[in-house]
């Protein structure tokens, strides 16, 4: 199970980072979302993988670690707000610069 979880994280990270390095704003937003999934899952994993034992007092004898869960919960919400902000930023840039390249210019080629 742990190995599978780690591999899944790796795949999510790879996809996220690759998209992050693309040249179009929308693709970068996609990458950012994937990467934040990976980061949230990673943080969550620091509480280890426990099945069927939510962190509710009195429900089970050993419960999952509540601390990473609390951290990740706010991270999800803030991540959402940030995604929304980046989306609006991308829209604004696309309107003002008349293209959706991340650098705001050279719409036909990558810059390096």
């Amino acid at each position, binding site marked *: *199970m*742990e*190995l*599978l*979880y780690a*591999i*899944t994280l790796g*795949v*999510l*990270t790879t*996809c*996220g*980072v*690759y*998209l992050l*390095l693309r*040249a*179009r704003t*929308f693709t970068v*937003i*996609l990458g950012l*979302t*994937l990467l934040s999934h990976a980061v*949230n899952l990673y943080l*969550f*994993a620091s*509480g*280890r*993988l*426990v*099945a069927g*034992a939510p*962190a*509710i*007092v009195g429900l089970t004898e050993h419960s*999952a*670690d*509540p*601390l990473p*869960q*609390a951290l*990740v*919960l*706010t991270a999800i*919400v803030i991540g*959402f707000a940030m*995604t*929304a*902000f980046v989306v*609006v*930023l991308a*829209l604004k840039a*696309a*309107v003002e610069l008349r293209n*959706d390249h991340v*650098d705001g210019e050279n719409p036909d*080629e*990558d*810059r*390096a």
Partner: protein
Amino acid sequence: MPLVLIILLPLTGACLPALLQGRSSRLLASVAALPALFCLLLLLSWLPHVMGGGEAVVQRLAWLPSLGLDVAFRLDGLGLLFALLITGIGCLILLYARYYFAGSDTSARFFTLILLFMAAMLSIVLSENLLFMLVFWELTSLVSFLLIGYHSHDHAARLGARMSLVITGGGGLALFGGVVLLGQAAGSYELTKVLEAGDRIRAHEHYGLMLNLILLGAFTKSAQFPFHLWLPHAMTAPTPVSAYLHSATMVKAGLFLVARLHPALGDTSLWFHLITLTGMVTLMLGAFVAMFMHDMKGLLAYSTVSHLGLIMLLLGLGTPMALAAALFHLLCHALFKAPLFMMAGYVDRATGTRDMRRINGMWRFMPALMVLSGISAAAMAGLPLMSGYLSKKMLFGESLQVTAPDWAVVVIPLWVTLAGLFSVAYSIRIFHNVFFNGRPVDLPVWPPVSPRAAALSPIALLAFATLLVGLAPEAFYAGLVHPAFAAARQAMVTPFDFATLGGRLPMLMSLFALAGGALFYHFRDPLFRLHARLPEVDAKEIFDWLMRRTIALSQQRVFQLENGSLQRYLTFIMATLVVLVGLELGGVTHWDGGVALAPLDPLTLLAAVLLCLAAIGVVAFHHYRLPALLLLGVTGLFVTVTFARFSAPDLALTQLMVEVMAVVIMMLALSFLPQTSPRGSSGFRMGRDLAIAGLMGIGVAAFSYAILTRPQQTISDFFLVNSVPGGGGSNVVNVILVDFRGFDTLGEITVLGIAAVAVFAFTRDLHLKERVVETNPMHWVAEPHPIMLSTVARLVLPIALLVSAYIFLRGHNLPGGGFIAGLITAVALTLQYMAGGLVWAQARMLTAFRPLIGAGVLIATFTGLGSWLFGFPFLTSAHGHFHLPLVGEFELATAMLFDLGVYATVVGATLLILANLGKLMTVAGPGKEIG
């Protein structure tokens, strides 16, 4: 009496002239002289103690003891000699400035800066702590910069100021490095301990580096070759500044440092070679160039460079009495060079020029000045009975004492004799050219008017002191120089014996230098012509070229790194991350931490495979944006499933709601953006990015595997145990959010609110409608508000709100809470927007989203503040059981009120974002504000 007073007096005194802006120089000088004179008196009161061979006085005030930084002062012979020089000459300079600035109403700045400089310089020489000293070392550089650029409208003055700041400031940086190394080696920054640790420091592995860095600081400050060039260019400063900072005091700070640290660093072969050779080159170069300068102040500046080189040479020499000779000459130099500068200032004022080819025959106009300058010039030349004669003979005597290395035994005596010859020549020149040598040529100001008798008083006092030293050197030596010599040596030393000074060889060398100098001056005209034909090597050009190259190079580097391309920045950041973390992880030997793996069930495997496939699908289809977005939604759903699978119901609920909202928002955005991404990347680029991304993925996978298979050590037991008794709730995640870590949550909802308001501000004046038509002639759906959807949505709303209220109320004990309830409410209302359209929803809905966000944050904050009323720390929660008839036993916690704030903020923020993005779709466009 506290030593700190000596520094505080001029420091606070510096404010006085600043408050008297625009007043006459007479008043300003008197006001500025008060703290300086008082300071001098304080120092003189210490003289008996120091002369009597008293111990060094150390006084300290704790400042940052954890960093080894105290405000600590130390007064011993060496410090007192310099402090007296600084305040004594400083007082005379203030007196001189009173006349120099007569008639000018902008001199307040000068007096303020001079007092500030005095305080900084006194701090350098009286510091016990080396770090403390460094601060004031830099301050003198800064004040010097401001004073050189005093005539800020003058281009040359600005250039000179900048050059001095670059060189002395750069040297200060090197010194900083050196002092830190020194402090590390000595184990303390306290001078007392550093001076005792000499053997340990000299044996330290970084001794060479340390010495080089410290000497770099000293050499730049004291204008040693090749850093001397700032000093001649500093002559654009008003003459009182040149006389004070750039001849008598600041440029001697480097010499002071070398003398001060001599017991800690000195008397090694490296020390001898670095200091002696630098001193020799500086001595000769300064003396030679000075001879050919036509500018009075230029000549004096190069002669200062030469004398600084001479003293530096003596400091490095290492013969028993060399240090005494150095300190003696240092004092003599200050006494004869300052009046010469003052003379140059008066002559400049009287004639309007500093060119010695034009200023001739001044004896007719200012005979008194001639007599007084004659004394100083004679001392500089080293005529018999003058102070300079003695110090020069001391130099010659010491140069003959050198026994090793072999070259030095012959070269140094010859070298100093030759340099002495030049110094005689330029001393004759400045005196003869200015006061004799025929008649003035074409002076801008005519006729030259002699300064008033009173104005000559500072020159007269200094000339008198020079004569006194020449006549009674023993008393002078015993009173001031010997205690300084002993303090610099940190040992009992035998006093210098002036009786043996008249050795045959030093006498011969002196006579040779005098005669040679006179001859040299006599044949000056052919020599000047010869010199004029020599190719001109202007050090300033080299300096400027170096500066230009440095700036161009760094700009080039900056542009290479910072070319405005996000792709490049991200690639750099990611690649750096891969390399640095990779290097660190390379040392990990056991990736498997040993904890037994949990068994794998087929359903989980399937979900994981689907999650991976969806993520890979996003990448594969990222050129087609809508499919990619849908696949992104799929990954989000499987992340939700993952949270649910591993005992995190709160997270699963949150993720689910967020996923819905995020996809809706991105979908909205996508309708304004191109529907496809062009295939722009080259194959190489894609390969490179894939490699970086792949390496990061492997790193993250390996790292999380390593974590997952290691035993867990958590602090969560505290939360689990205290959740019910301390927070009054059994859902520990929620209790952490609203109680234990309530402050974090407060910050987070604030960020959420700020992000939403930022979105609001951004969409305010965005005109997208035309653009949609432009880029997207075909709209996605024919019917924007399908009837089925709107009917269902209206039916669902009350149920959804009820669920949301339920989730909110139970959140403290079961999965749920403000965040999740807020998101559910938001999703339900979003559905109304989607089904009915913005205008329809607007008409039927309360849309004060921004006040809602504000209210949410305020509710949460005031709930936290409420605990203050009861004397508890911020955000302490209270809870209790209550009994109501019919309802029965129930529990209330103030945390619930806090959660209400969270709820309000989440609803407000989410809807503000969504409504404003949706607004862009409407024909009404940005005309009407929502939220």
